[in-house]
């Protein structure tokens, strides 16, 4: 059993009720007509693929059906926090908010890769 905390339901729910929806905090260019091809291409096609802390969009598909954000560690798969739409993460990739063993692990992996 693997539980995820839904910030809208206010409780942990079974993973089976959720779906991941890719990277979070992607902002649509304010004026698509005026933005460069590169900026538009970045917005449409390019996504981060970090080794470590990643902010993702998830949906509580069988449940309240709300989208929300998840801060997840891509090496340990640990979910560090979940938060509502429109909010900012309290844990980010800079080492301060990162679990110590995860920092060490990602450095080692980095050398080998």
């Amino acid at each position, binding site marked *: 059993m693997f539980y995820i905390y839904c910030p*809208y339901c*206010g*409780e942990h*729910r*079974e993973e*089976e009720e959720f779906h991941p929806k890719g990277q979070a905090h992607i902002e649509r260019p304010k004026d698509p007509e005026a933005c460069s091809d590169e900026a538009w291409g970045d917005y449409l096609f390019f996504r981060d693929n970090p080794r470590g802390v990643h902010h993702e969009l998830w949906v509580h598909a*069988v449940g*309240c059906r*709300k989208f929300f954000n998840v801060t997840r560690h891509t090496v340990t798969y640990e979910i560090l926090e979940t938060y509502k739409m429109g909010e900012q993460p309290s844990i980010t990739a800079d080492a301060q908010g990162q679990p110590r063993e995860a920092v060490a692990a990602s450095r080692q992996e980095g050398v080998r890769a």
Partner: protein
Amino acid sequence: MSNAATFDTRTDSAIPVESPLAYSYRRSGAPAAGPESRVTLRERALLGQLVLRGGAIVLDEAVREVLGLGLPGEPQGLVQDERGERSIQWLSPDEWLVIVPGGEEFELETRLRERLGDAHYAISDVSGGQTLLELEGEAARELLMKTVIYDVHPSHFPVGRGVTTVFAKATAIVRRPSEERWELVVRRSFADYCYRWLLDAGEEYAIGVVR
């Protein structure tokens, strides 16, 4: 009054209506409940069901005035009137399910629309899209434990709670209006599957269907 187009889905009583389980009773039968039955299943067919969407404060004032029942204050909350005939359940932060006796839903919808005026809200009559099943008996919880992924232990699922969750790989609403009774709200298109699942899973408890 808003300018939303509404219509009463039950204007002509000459048209025969069938519960979502009518086909299932014919095809799969309905084992009678006996003294050895540790769980019974009963469909409360053709109830009035409305989904309300909008801000909690505005909707709460409206349903208090029109229905005499406030919105549940907490997520997963379920409130009902004294006789247990009318209920409101939290579905999501801006969405509630209202269940009333069959035939009341259009008048309720109309009165809510009059009361809500130009407020930002939506009311959908979903009466035809889902049906309510009741499970009663000492083995009801055991049957649910085999069926839903949500923890239905009384310490986690007290009376007055309702959740939308995975029900035997389908989706259903599971609610607990009283100590001895559980309710399932299933989609019409899943009703036959859920019914047959319950008969199969309930066989070891000598499940009986009350009609």
